[in-house]
């Protein structure tokens, strides 16, 4: 298109010199090369020695000895001869359509003019461009902001003129949907229309930018960009109940106008860079927005090639997401070979994979309150330091105030002797081959090859005469995974059935109680007679636990009675008890749970009278005491919340565990995990002018440090892509199209900016404002280009009056800029799926404006046959309060998305969606007509109208004010009144919800 424009611009219209315009490489020539040449003559493949990726390559001597381009000499340039050739056998491109005559002419003139070839616009240094001088512009009075001067200069260059401002109603409806994703209320409209001061627009904009709904609207855009959803997306499409804090983080960040650099850093490495800030940890939810292949990454065997492939693809998803989101770079094109068109090397791609070599996706615990986080961290550090203090008999442990506390504790301890008597095992066996070794404390340590299932049988004689209860302790041991208490890889155990017999006659166990029950795996299940259920302790592994059971009737025993315990652990998967210990009691019910049974060594110290203890013993005791005290204090802190995010610190999920250290990453030949090459070092790209991508890491095995280095590289003011990319995204959402039409591709095959200077000016403006996105939003929505009319015809008609120029002198832009790339009018936008839904709720009066919290399920969820639940949208109660929340709070199910929202072009949440497609189909019309949500909202709206206005005609007027933000015309009033009279008000509401006037914003 731009070529055609160039010619028209050069030969006609006012304000343009009669001289042939200067050809600009990236605006005029680059698009031709990208479309016709680069596939075979790009950076990677230079067929025939012809490379058109940069000037150096393009001017080089060819295999044939000729030159593709000789600056200033078109007749000597082989490229020109070949593209202009009439002979199909030598004409380029070899495949596909030849260049048009206009395109050939552009190339010819570009070579004539010296074949200037500036560095690629996206990679070059960012400098503030000069604002076009209004003195040179015919319509300068139209401009409101510097943005307008950039737009106007280009329009005038092309012989176009801008459109006059939209009327006030249109403007408020436009800017309210744009900034909030909601319609203005009739009252807001009235107030705005009544404000005839020059600051009216400004005031409305300030109000909207300060609204909390602003964050909801712009978070939803961001969620598209980063493919946010709340399930895994593969065959095991498991819901992620802890994904939503990231969504709330986004809303909060946009509302608070978090500086963009910080926003970038937090999402990539907030945990490493700002460890004290819980929001910064939640921000790393960004790294885990994408799909996750549970079958391959968790369920299948770890030693399979499929697991290896899945890890590689999972890292690719993170790398791709990070680089597309923040740098609009298509690094994933360098997975199998050097990027064909952009200067991204194969090795560099794997350097980025290495950054995430230790990053896993999972639920990470954190404290929402920074004070609690601080306290927890302090306690954890103090506890972690204890062994060393004890080892060194540190004087701090012997300090009088500590020893005093210990004395008081000892006194209390003496008064509360445990009622439990530990049994000494006499015989013990394991049916499936585990070894059991008796320990000095009466426990049995299991070892040997771990079978899938196991049954322990343990006998002992009774040291007391009356038994009222039994206790099973499952203790930790350094030899067990995660120190136990179970033998499963994750430290868990499952006790399916537990029985106790005295002289072979079974005792009836009741009132089971444990110090900790795994969710849905309680101690009661160990005595329920059902082999499928069991007691478990996950995720509280790494610490001892105990379960106690009362005897329904106390049993009196003789001296030689044999007590037999049977511990059935038949769940499978090696969920076995690592170190059991049994006790009995004659205490009265309720039986106590001894949470703090003392280690042998400490019991020994306590048996030594205080005065006789040496310092080593005192230090040990103090260390034990402080450990218990601080552990209790930790336990009393408010419970931690979980966030599903990317890090190396998350709760293990089956066999998917945090990596101990970043895994080695190899450069894969053709992207094939079976063909590993050299090991890649963590680093980023080097495609930006004067800004390298190498990392200087003190400790490369620190997973967080790798991400932190990348985060800093991304947020650096020298990373020009970061700043260009985000202002383009904002522009894109405000206007329906970016200054660069490919928001995720700023490379050579991406679109060329329509206004490169404006793009750079905005990027610099963002940087210099300290990264304030709201500053950019404000600049954009206060501009005349944003505020102009969207109506082509109307615009032209009014332009006659507005600019006082005769119609005959106006150029009709339809013929050569009908798609409005140069913004001679505003774009009309169709409401997106969320705005349609939210607007319907808003006008029906049903919108629940509650912010934040767990996502609302607008479907019935029932257990599926396996991991993936069944999801039923159709039978969901249309009046359920969950339906009344804003759409940004919908629970988004990857493989079972809401059909209504999909029909309205909600993107597939497994793909990064930089911009949405827009479709018109019969199924969409059916959804708007018949979807129960829409039908019910039209009924609710009818109720509201009846409540608010007594008369039918008033009701119709109100209907129009609410849905279209205007009064009905006389014809409309009578037509809708007639329809409502005949078929009811709800039918009239339904018609207006389906109208183009509702679905589109002028």
């Amino acid at each position, binding site marked *: 298109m731009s070529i055609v424009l160039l010619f028209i611009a050069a030969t006609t219209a006012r304000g343009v010199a009669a001289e042939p315009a200067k050809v600009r490489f990236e605006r005029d020539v680059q698009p031709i090369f990208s479309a*016709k040449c680069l596939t075979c003559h790009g950076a990677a493949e230079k067929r025939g020695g012809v490379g058109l990726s940069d000037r150096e390559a393009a001017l080089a001597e060819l295999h044939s000895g000729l030159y593709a381009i000789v600056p200033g000499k078109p007749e000597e340039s082989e490229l020109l001869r070949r593209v202009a050739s009439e002979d199909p056998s030598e004409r380029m491109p070899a495949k596909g359509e030849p260049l048009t005559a206009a395109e050939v002419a552009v190339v010819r003139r570009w070579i004539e003019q010296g074949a200037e070839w500036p560095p690629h616009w996206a990679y070059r240094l960012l400098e503030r461009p000069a604002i076009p001088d209004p003195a040179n512009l015919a319509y300068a009075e139209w401009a409101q902001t510097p943005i307008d001067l950039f737009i106007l200069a280009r329009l005038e260059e092309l012989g176009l003129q801008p459109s006059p401002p939209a009327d006030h109603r249109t403007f408020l409806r436009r800017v309210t949907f744009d900034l909030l994703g909601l319609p203005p209320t009739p009252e807001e409209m009235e107030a705005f229309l009544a404000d005839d001061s020059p600051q009216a627009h400004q005031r409305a904009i300030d109000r909207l930018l300060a609204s909390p709904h602003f964050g909801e609207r712009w978070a939803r855009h961001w969620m598209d960009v980063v*493919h946010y959803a709340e399930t895994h*997306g593969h*065959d095991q*499409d498991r819901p992620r109940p802890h994904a939503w804090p990231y969504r709330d983080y986004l809303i909060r960040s946009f509302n608070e106008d978090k500086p963009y650099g910080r926003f970038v850093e937090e999402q990539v490495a907030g945990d490493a860079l700002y460890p004290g800030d819980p929001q910064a940890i939640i921000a790393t939810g960004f790294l885990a927005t994408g799909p996750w*292949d549970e*079958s*391959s990454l968790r369920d*299948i065997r770890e030693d*399979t090639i*499929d697991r290896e*492939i*899945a890890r590689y*693809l999972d890292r690719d998803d993170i790398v791709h997401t990070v680089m597309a989101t923040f740098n609009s770079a298509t690094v*994933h094109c360098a997975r*199998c070979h050097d990027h064909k068109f952009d200067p991204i090397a194969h090795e560099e791609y794997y350097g980025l994979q290495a950054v995430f070599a230790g990053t896993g996706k999972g639920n990470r615990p954190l404290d929402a309150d920074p004070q609690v986080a601080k306290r927890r961290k302090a306690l954890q550090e103090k506890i972690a330091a204890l062994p060393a203090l004890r080892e060194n008999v540190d004087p701090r442990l012997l300090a009088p105030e500590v020893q005093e506390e210990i004395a008081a504790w000892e006194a209390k301890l003496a008064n509360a002797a445990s009622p439990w008597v530990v049994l000494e095992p006499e015989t013990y066996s394991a049916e499936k081959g585990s070894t059991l070794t008796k320990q000095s404390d009466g426990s049995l340590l299991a070892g040997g090859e771990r079978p899938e299932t196991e049954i322990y049988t343990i006998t002992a004689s009774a040291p007391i005469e009356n038994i009222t209860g039994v206790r099973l302790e499952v203790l930790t041991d350094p030899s067990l995974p995660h120190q136990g208490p179970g033998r499963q890889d994750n430290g868990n155990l499952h006790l399916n059935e537990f029985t106790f017999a005295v002289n072979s006659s079974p005792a009836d166990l009741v009132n089971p109680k444990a110090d900790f029950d795994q969710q849905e795996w309680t101690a009661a299940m160990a005595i329920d007679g059902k082999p499928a259920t069991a007691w478990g302790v996950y995720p509280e592994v790494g610490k001892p636990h105990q379960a106690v059971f009362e005897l329904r009737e106390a049993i009196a025993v003789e001296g030689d009675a044999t007590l037999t315990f049977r511990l059935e652990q038949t769940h499978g998967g090696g969920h076995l008890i690592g170190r059991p210990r049994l006790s009995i009691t004659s205490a009265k019910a309720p039986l106590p749970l001894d949470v703090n049974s003392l280690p042998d060594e400490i019991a020994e110290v306590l048996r030594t009278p205080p005065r006789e203890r040496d310092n080593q013993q005192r230090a040990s005791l103090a260390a034990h005491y402080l450990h218990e005290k601080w552990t209790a204090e930790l336990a009393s802190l408010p419970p931690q919340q979980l966030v599903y995010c990317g890090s190396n610190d998350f709760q293990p999920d089956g066999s998917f565990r945090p990596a101990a250290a970043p895994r080695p990453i190899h450069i894969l030949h053709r992207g094939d995990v079976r063909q590993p090459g050299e090991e890649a070092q963590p680093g980023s790209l080097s495609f930006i002018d004067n800004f390298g991508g190498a990392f200087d890491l003190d400790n490369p095995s620190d997973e967080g440090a790798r991400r932190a280095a990348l985060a800093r590289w991304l947020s650096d003011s020298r990373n020009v892509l970061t700043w260009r990319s985000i202002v383009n995204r904002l522009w894109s959402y405000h206007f*329906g199209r970016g200054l660069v039409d490919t928001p*995720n591709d700023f490379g050579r*095959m991406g679109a060329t900016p329509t206004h490169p200077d404006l793009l750079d000016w905005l990027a610099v403006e963002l940087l210099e404002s300290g990264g304030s996105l709201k500053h950019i939003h404000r600049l954009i929505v206060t501009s005349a280009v944003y505020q102009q009319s969207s*109506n*082509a*015809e109307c615009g032209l008609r009014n332009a006659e009056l507005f600019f006082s120029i005769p119609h005959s002198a106006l150029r009709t832009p339809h013929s050569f800029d009908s798609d*409005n790339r140069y913004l001679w009018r505003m774009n009309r936008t*169709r409401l997106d799926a969320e705005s349609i839904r939210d607007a319907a709720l808003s006008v029906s009066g049903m919108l629940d404006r509650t912010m934040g919290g767990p996502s609302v399920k607008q479907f019935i969820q029932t257990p*599926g*046959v*396996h991991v*993936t639940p069944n999801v039923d949208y159709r039978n969901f109660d249309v009046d359920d309060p969950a339906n009344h929340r804003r759409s940004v709070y919908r629970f988004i199910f*990857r493989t079972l*998305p809401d*059909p*209504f929202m*999909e*029909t309205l072009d*909600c*993107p*597939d949440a*497994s*793909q990064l*969606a*930089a911009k949405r*497609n827009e*479709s*018109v*189909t*019969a*199924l*969409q019309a*059916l959804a708007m*007509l018949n*979807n*129960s949500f829409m039908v019910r909202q039209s*009924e609710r709206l009818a109720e509201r109208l009846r409540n608010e206005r007594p008369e039918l005609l008033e009701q119709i007027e109100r209907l129009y004010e609410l849905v279209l933000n205007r009064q009905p015309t006389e014809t409309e009033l009578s037509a809708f009144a007639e329809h409502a009279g005949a*078929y009811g008000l709800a039918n009239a509401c339904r*018609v*207006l919800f*389906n*109208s*183009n*006037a509702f679905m589109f914003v002028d």
Partner: protein
Amino acid sequence: MATTNHSRRSFLSSLGGGLGGIALAHLLGRSGLLADSPRAELNGGLHHPAKVRRIVQLFMNGGVSQMDTFDYKPELEKRHGEKIDFGLTAAATSTPGAIMKSPFAWKQHGRCGRWVSSVFPHMAEIVDDLAFLMAMASKTNVHGPASYLQNTGFLLPGFPCMGAWISYGLGSVSDDLPTFVVLPDSRGLPYNNAGNFSAGFLPMSHQGTIIKPTAPTPINDLSPPDWAGHITPESETAGLALLEQVNREHQESRSDDLRLESRIDSYELAAKMQLSAPEALDLSQETTATHRDYGLDRPETADFGRNCLTARRMLERGVRFVQIWSGMGGPSKNWDNHSDIPRELPFIAASVDQPIAALVRDLRRRGMLEDTLVIWTTEFGRMPFTQGATGRDHNGGTFVTWLAGAGVKPGIAHGQSDEFSYQAAEGKTECYDLHATVLHLLGIDHERLTWRHNGIDRRLTDVHGHVIRQVLA
């Protein structure tokens, strides 16, 4: 790759620039103005003459055991019970067991002498119509990625499936039914659920429309909810007329915006679909004999048979691509026979065998095989050795697919697996080749049907794919 086709598409897309390019294309496509809409002189193809105008794909979800159905291996009988080292320490979910022969009886069938096991007695009767790909291979042994791979050509979610690409490439044959219809197993959706029918990054209008013939509302939102008593046929007629009136008035001063016109049309199409969809789904119009042929009279075949018969009616009425699924996600009620081949496989096989044979015969009888392609496939095969006592684990190494109908050489087999049916040995084909072949038959060059997404001209066949000439007529 920057072909005519692509550049015109980009042109049209940029014309609306995400602001109606699609709507415009939709309008132009319907009125025959779109340059790369099906070309009459190519029999509806885009790049070369088409043989096929419509497709029905039968997808057996879970991984059909090839050596127990179509891939006869005497070697397994000889070495039954032997432990053979395939250099594999672990299959997807288990440790390799001993070689297990097929527990079923095998016979040669048809003039072509194709071996078929006793689990498919009906399909055995139509082997002379079928072209077998005996050495299909998958890149993965895991259901989720494998199903994505067979449907979209990628291991990950978010890519358009074959039906969506075809819808994008060729558009609809008729206006009043969806272009791409999915008939899931009546018990539930397959692995990956609707992810298998996604339009990915293509416009949503290309994704599969799920039809559940026996559900109260077989197509989402085809009619108003039952409780909406205020919506009557009269109110509907008057309402649509009023809607058109307000839309026309709105459009008058905005006539340059083709999206508005397009939306007005879409309501007309919607009204047509409301009439034609129930008619297409009304199986009572079929004879008792037809019902019996498809197995609708017997509970074990009724569900799948109903979907097959519905598919035929859809194809007749202009649906471009119908995908029928056998098997739901999860550990059972599908082809994922991990624990007991002798017991599990015959059961699920019997549910599809007669209906599939009936569908192929019915299409032939009606002359529809002249321009219809039938594809029978699955996401991977199974292992020659046991899992547990008599089950088989996943095996992407080799599996069987067959084609029938327009443009396909009947009664042949291409490729073969090794003596154990462990790996593809000769004439190995992958989903890319199958997809390239299907597009080829539709008159589409698979390298030229592209969509630019995040910097890459994406294709159904990624960077792979060769048309399997050996099976072309």
